[in-house]
C-alpha cells in the first residue's frame, strides 16, 4: 500500500489482484447485477488509486470490504428510491479502529463457517450486511422483536468469530 501511495501502478495491480474478488463478490452479493458490481469494483479501486490516504491503516482487506459493501448498498438504495443508478464520489469510511487481520482466510472457509450458524442467526447478519437493512428493518421484515434481532446478530457474530479464531492474527 505504501507503494500505491507513491503512485506505483505495479503495486496497485498487485493490490487489485489480491482484493478484486472480495470487492466484486461483495458488490455482486449486494446488487445481484454483474454490470453494477463491476461499476462498484471499478469505482472502489480507482478511488484507492486516486486517494490512497483514505486507507489509514489496519487490515486492508477489512477496510476495502467495508468500502465495497457501503458503496454497493448506497447504489442499491439509490436505485430503489430513484429507479436509476447513481454513484457519487463520496466514500463512507467510518472505520477508525484498527481491525484484527484475518490470515489464511478464504471465501470457501468462511462460507462453511457461516453455513454452520443456525439460520435464525445467519439470516439477520446477512440481511444487515448484504441487504443493507438496519436492525429495526430486520425486525420488521422477520416479524421478530428488536431485542431478539440484536441478540441474534450478536450471538451469530460471536460464534463466527470463535469458529475462525485460528485464522486471526493480532
Amino acid at each position, binding site marked *: 500500500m505504501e507503494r500505491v501511495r507513491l503512485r506505483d501502478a505495479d503495486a496497485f495491480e498487485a493490490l487489485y489482484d489480491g482484493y478484486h474478488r472480495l470487492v466484486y463478490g461483495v458488490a455482486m452479493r449486494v446488487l445481484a447485477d454483474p454490470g453494477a458490481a463491476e461499476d462498484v469494483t471499478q469505482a472502489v479501486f480507482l478511488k484507492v488509486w486516486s486517494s490512497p490516504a483514505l486507507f489509514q491503516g489496519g487490515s486492508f482487506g477489512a477496510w476495502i470490504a467495508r468500502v465495497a459493501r457501503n458503496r454497493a448498498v448506497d447504489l442499491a438504495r439509490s436505485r430503489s428510491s430513484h429507479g436509476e443508478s447513481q454513484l457519487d464520489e463520496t466514500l463512507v469510511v467510518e472505520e477508525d479502529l484498527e481491525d484484527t487481520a484475518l490470515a489464511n482466510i478464504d471465501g470457501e472457509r468462511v462460507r462453511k463457517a457461516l453455513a454452520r450458524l443456525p439460520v435464525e442467526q445467519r439470516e439477520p*447478519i446477512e440481511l444487515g450486511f448484504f441487504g443493507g437493512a438496519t*436492525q429495526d428493518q430486520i425486525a420488521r421484515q422477520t416479524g421478530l422483536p428488536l431485542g431478539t434481532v*440484536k441478540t441474534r446478530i450478536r450471538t451469530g457474530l460471536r460464534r463466527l468469530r470463535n469458529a475462525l479464531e485460528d485464522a486471526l492474527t493480532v
Partner: protein
Amino acid sequence: MTGHEERFDSVAAYALGALPPAEAAAIKEHLQTCALCREEYAYLRPAVTAVAYSAEACTDAGSGAVAVSPLLKSRIMKRVRSEAASREAARRIWPAYALAAACVAIAIVTGLTDLSLNRQNDAQRQTIADLAAPDARRHFFAGGEVVTHGGRIYIAMRNLPALPAGRVFQAWTLARGATRVAPSSTFAPGSGGVAVVALPEAATNIAAVAVSVEPYGGSSQPTTKPIAVVRI
C-alpha cells in the same frame, strides 16, 4: 436499561453496519470513551469481515460460482497506467521549465525581495521540494497546473503572453463553501512566459483557483474573464 447497556446492545449491529446514520454516529462517539464497548466492537469486527469474505468471488468462471470478468482488470489498469504515465511525464517536464524558473520566479511573484537571502533560499527549497514531490497533487489545465503539497498551493503556468503595460496576472481562490472568489497574489511571468506562484492560502481550505488579467496592483473581484479556472 442504562445508556451504556442500550449502546452495548447495539455494538454488534454497528459493527455489521446495520444502524441508521444517527444511531451509528452515537455508537461511534460512545466507543471513543467506553473501553468495554470498544472491546466488544474489536472482538466482533473480524467476524463482520469474515461475512464479507464469504461473498468472495472466484477466478474460474467454469466453477459455477461468481467470477470476475478479466476485462474489468484491463479497463481499470488502462486508466491507472495512463494516469501514472502522465504523472511521470509531468515529473520529467517539471525540472525542464518550472523548477529552474522557480528560483527566479518566486522572488518576482511573491515579493520576497525584502527578505534576507537565507529566507529566500528556504522558500525556494520548499517550493522546489513541493513541486517535485512524488505525492504532490497536480491539477492540470491548458497552459499549466495547480500543485498542492503539504497544505501549500502553487500555480505554475507556461507560455504566458506578454502583458500590456499596467497589467498583471492575478490569482483568485474560492474557499470551500464560499460563493465568491477572494483575491490572491498578483504576478508577472518570468523569462520564457513561465510563472510559478506560491499562494499564501492554505490548500486545505481551497476548492478552486483561477487566474485573470487585472490592472497593476490587483482587483478585489475579477474584472476580466479568467484565463484559467481549476477545481481542486
